[in-house]
């Protein structure tokens, strides 16, 4: 078996997939305590396609602002700088991964599940009471949670296929990440976490991506990671159009405990709400 390490695997990706300039510069500005809203608005304005997307999203029911937002600086000030970073990443990442094709899953199916996870995470975050959980931040984490899968599918197609066949041969009893661990010695969550690290994405995103199948490991952002873990499973329910949790993998009880959310109260309304939102969200974020 190929002994590729996760770090080597991800290093090879950086030549194939680059994050757009606009994101990298926004990311730097958000991290920089001396930068102003005006600085960020200026960077955004230099990228016409991101400007258009930002204004579309800012004026969509997604944010539900009462008045029209017609300038970038107004959008930046009402949406907030760290949310602009999330938005830049959300709208850029699907595009940038077009350079990483694979034969195992269509990009459409991949982003369909990811977007469901993002929507569910956002809905859940609004219901979390234990402490503030930023809906836009976990939206982005949800959107990116399986990003390691695209790396594995592109770089290790044979092993990736073997993993998927193992899942099917088990009658869907073995989860994908466990099959990957058996075949490769690592899984897509680990690979995605490493990619987030090499890309210097915010540590919260890195942790949510790396531990969405293993909430116990999350040290700094257990709440956000738990939200993404639950969101991933509820996204599968939305995707296969079921309200019965027995039809998908179980949620780790620890995730319910950390979030203070109650399965019986949350699952059905959240899955329904995500199903209502998906078509609009696909238009906004996947440009359909």
């Amino acid at each position, binding site marked *: 078996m190929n002994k590729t390490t996760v770090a080597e695997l991800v290093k090879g990706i950086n030549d194939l997939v680059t994050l757009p300039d606009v994101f990298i510069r926004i990311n730097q500005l958000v991290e920089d305590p001396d930068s102003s809203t005006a600085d960020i608005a200026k960077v955004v304005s230099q990228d016409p396609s991101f400007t258009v997307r930002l204004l579309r999203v800012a004026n969509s029911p997604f944010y539900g602002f009462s008045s029209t937002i017609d300038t970038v600086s107004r959008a930046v000030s009402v949406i907030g700088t760290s949310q602009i970073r999330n938005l830049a990443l959300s709208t850029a990442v699907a595009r940038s991964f077009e350079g990483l094709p694979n034969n195992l*899953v*269509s990009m459409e199916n*991949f982003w*369909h599940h990811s977007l469901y996870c993002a929507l569910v995470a956002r809905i859940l975050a609004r219901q979390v009471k234990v402490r503030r959980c930023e809906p836009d931040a976990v939206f982005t984490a949800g959107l990116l949670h399986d990003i390691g899968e695209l790396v594995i599918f592109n770089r290790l197609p044979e092993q990736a296929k073997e993993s998927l*066949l193992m899942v*099917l041969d088990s*009658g*869907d*009893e073995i989860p994908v990440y466990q099959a990957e661990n058996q075949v490769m010695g690592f899984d897509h969550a680990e690979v995605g976490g490493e990619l987030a690290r090499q890309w210097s994405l915010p540590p919260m995103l890195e942790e949510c991506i790396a531990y969405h199948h293993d909430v116990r490991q999350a040290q700094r952002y257990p709440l956000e990671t738990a939200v993404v873990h639950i969101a991933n499973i509820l996204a599968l329910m939305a995707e296969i*159009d079921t309200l019965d949790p027995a039809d998908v993998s179980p949620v780790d009880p620890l995730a319910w405990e950390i979030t203070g959310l109650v399965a019986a109260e949350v699952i059905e309304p959240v899955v329904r709400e995500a199903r209502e939102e998906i078509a609009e969200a696909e238009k906004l974020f996947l440009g359909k």
Partner: protein
Amino acid sequence: MAPAPTQRLPLALPGFEHVRRAWHNAYEAFAARLLPGEYYVTQCDEGVYTTLGSCISACIRDRVSGIGGMNHFMLPASASAEAGGWKSTDLSDATRYGNFAMEHLINDILKNGGKRQNLEVKIFGGGRVMKGMTDIGARNITFAHDYLKTEGLRVTSEDVGDVFPRMVLYFPATGKVKVKRLRSLHSNTIVEQEVRYLETIAAKPVGGEIELF
């Protein structure tokens, strides 16, 4: 699936020794894994399962003796099928493969002691799992319905069509069945298995004679 089986592997009926079987802890039973084009008949209390894209699985059993099994098939595309004319010639190349799959399953059940009047049938699959392609799943469903109607066999339950791949697990001894919709992550892998099966049947056409019973 690490824990050891609590039973012995049931004896396979003659002709089915090659089908891969394994212990499934979740169901505490052995189960045979079918790939496209295969079928399996058993008189023991064991499961048969498969994963379906646009293919069909018929699950048939003698509800009195419990002998039964499952097949997994699809009709190959043909020129007449594309023209929408496959229905009018029921012995066209396309339907021949469906007849072949259904008759093999039914004949083996009867050969091993099943009674025709006791047969109950469940059908699954025929999903439109790939967007933008012609709905070959619908064609397979129509074939299965027509075939069973012509043969006078009663369908007691079905879960067909829609856009999902499926995992179907069937216990002929009890008639119990578990259908699980699969996420679209698995669509390509399942479709690839089905396409490979279609290529093998295209390369090796079945003979014109079908043993009738």
